[in-house]
């Protein structure tokens, strides 16, 4: 720059010889040349000064960082982006620099081999993906670039709500990209197997995300379609029983003390049950759950309760344990209510587990404070009673019929909605148990509740079920119970009245 200014000022470009036609225009040419050089240099300087001004005085980088919603760490990535863009436009064409954008920059970084660069890339993408303003564009850009996404998921799954929001966004925008979604899901399922203490957080986030995603029917089918998915989910549920030492005993339950192991087993149990519960909304998945080795006994073990647990009041530990019981009962209910052959197999397998029915009985016996649990337990019993074997197993488990009747014929009633539902469910279960089973009917008659059942025909809430039970008792008890059943005659007026009342529906009374 100095040279060109000097030359321009001096205006002396050497002697011009007369007649030297070639050099005649040298002065003008050189003037133009030097002024151009000067102008370029000035422009360059001005640009430099402008950027210096923008960066240091106007805090350009800070502003960008703030606008993108990056944190303190974001500054590094922004700086890096700007320097990269700058050097690109200096070295190559200016258009190379202008065309650059943060997202592809981050994707490039993520694709590099240096782990620091990968981390920076992952961070940038994360910030954009969770930012409402940029999320859509960002995700569109990421597209189905699987290697990028793979690393992306790996780096970000630890961040609360991150992958979840990302995936949900993806699902909303591009429903058709099944390949991508399946990829996400299989990656998450794989993470469920990471049992290292250091990876507890990743595992938990993956489980949480899966539990939310599995709520959508399409996704639940996809998850179940991933090979080994059920085993991975099953690994979330802690294996509570050791192998028995002799063939005539069953392994003890291992007790885990959370503070001892620093590992939040109950949380994982709950998440595992929640995922399974959501998957079980589809009947095919129920079959898969049943076929997964060792899963059903684990689930049944979670339905175990005792008096202290259900009568204890409001401690956090208790709440989380009760939640586990509730979820496992809900899951079992879904499984046993499956129709068709699958359902038959599931009902058989579940009632063959030696703890099922006694666990359910304990829920009925101690669960006065938890009518919802009681109702679930009773409904499970009704479904198990669909199979002849199950029906008899329930009746010979001590106290089940007695508990059911004491709920059904309860005389002290508070009249709240939940209680009513429990009582109706109990009536249905008894009706099922009395169906086509002579031994069960005899058991019921032995309880000495026949008179009260006949009286129950007058109680609007339970009369339908009472009538069902009585009919089954009349049909299936057999001749030797004739004496017990004589009392049924007292029901005759009630039943004939209710039949006769019907005709008024079709022909109103004439008077």
């Amino acid at each position, binding site marked *: 720059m100095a040279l060109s200014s000097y030359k321009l000022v001096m205006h002396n470009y050497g002697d011009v010889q007369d007649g030297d036609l070639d050099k005649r225009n040298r002065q003008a040419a050189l003037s133009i040349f030097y002024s151009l050089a000067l102008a370029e240099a000035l422009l360059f300087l001005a640009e430099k000064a402008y950027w210096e001004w923008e960066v240091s005085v106007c805090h350009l980088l800070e502003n960008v960082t703030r606008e993108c919603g990056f944190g303190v760490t974001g500054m590094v990535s922004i700086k890096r982006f700007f320097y990269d863009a700058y050097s690109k436009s200096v070295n190559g064409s200016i258009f190379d620099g202008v065309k650059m954008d943060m997202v592809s920059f981050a994707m490039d970084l993520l694709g590099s081999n240096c782990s620091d660069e990968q981390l920076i890339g992952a961070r940038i993408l994360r910030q954009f993906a969770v930012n409402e303003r940029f999320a859509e564009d960002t995700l569109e850009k990421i597209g189905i670039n699987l290697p990028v996404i793979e690393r992306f998921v790996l780096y970000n799954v630890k961040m609360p709500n991150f992958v979840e929001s990302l995936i949900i966004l993806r699902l909303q925008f591009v429903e058709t990209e099944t390949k991508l979604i399946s990829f996400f899901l299989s990656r998450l399922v794989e993470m469920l197997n990471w049992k290292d203490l250091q990876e507890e957080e990743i595992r938990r986030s993956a489980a949480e995300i899966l539990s939310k995603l599995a709520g959508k029917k399409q996704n639940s089918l996809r998850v179940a379609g991933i090979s080994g998915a059920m085993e991975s989910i099953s690994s979330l549920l802690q294996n509570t029983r050791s192998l028995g030492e002799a063939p005539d005993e069953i392994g003890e339950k291992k007790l885990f003390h959370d503070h001892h192991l620093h590992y939040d087993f109950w949380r994982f149990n709950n998440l595992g049950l929640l995922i399974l519960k959501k998957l079980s909304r589809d009947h095919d998945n129920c079959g898969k759950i049943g076929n997964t080795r060792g899963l059903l006994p684990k689930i049944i073990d979670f339905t175990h309760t005792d008096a202290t647990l259900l009568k204890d009041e409001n401690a956090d530990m208790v709440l989380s344990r009760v939640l586990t019981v509730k979820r496992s009962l809900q899951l079992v209910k879904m499984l046993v209510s499956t129709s068709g052959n699958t359902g038959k197999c599931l009902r058989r397998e579940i009632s063959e587990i030696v703890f099922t029915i006694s666990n359910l009985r304990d829920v009925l016996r101690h669960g006065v404070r938890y009518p919802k649990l009681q109702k679930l337990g009773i409904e499970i019993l009704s479904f198990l009673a669909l199979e002849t074997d199950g029906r008899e197993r329930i009746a010979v488990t001590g106290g089940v019929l007695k508990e059911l009747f004491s709920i059904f014929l309860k005389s002290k009633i508070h009249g709240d909605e939940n209680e009513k539902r429990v009582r109706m469910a109990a009536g249905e279960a008894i009706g099922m148990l009395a*169906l086509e089973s002579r031994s069960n009917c005899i058991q019921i008659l032995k309880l000495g509740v026949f008179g009260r059942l006949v009286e129950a025909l007058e109680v609007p809430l339970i*009369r339908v079920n009472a009538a069902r039970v009585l009919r089954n008792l009349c049909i299936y008890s057999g001749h030797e119970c004739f004496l017990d059943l004589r009392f049924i005659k007292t029901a005759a007026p009630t039943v004939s009245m209710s039949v006769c009342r019907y005709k008024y529906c079709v022909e109103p009374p004439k008077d």
Partner: protein
Amino acid sequence: MQVLKSITSGDNKLLEVMLGLAAQVFKFMSSEEANIVLTDSGIKKQELANSLVSILKKHDKPAIKVPRIRRFVIELAIWMMEDDVENVGMFRDLGMEKELVKVLETTAELENFDVFSGTVGVSRQSRTVHWLAELALKMLEDEHS
């Protein structure tokens, strides 16, 4: 009020189970006992029979909510006819035959089960509705000749 309430499906269920119970209860009673109970409750046999026929009239096809209602009606009618030969003539006068023929034309597998798992019936009853309806029809016709 009572009439309105009876039409709701909830009461249809009650009617179904009560009919089912009635069909069994009367089997435990002798003819005289049944007569005494009915007279004590102020119910005439005519009324009872009339109810049964009108229930069949209303349920001219199997209902998924009350699948067994026609079976129970026919069971009860068969008991009444077995109980007292006079009842046969009464049913005939009320047009029971026509209703039974209609039942025979519309019976469904649905009506042969006590319990369902999904749409699959559990434990089929040995006496199908078709069989019961034919039996009742035969009883009506036999007395004719």
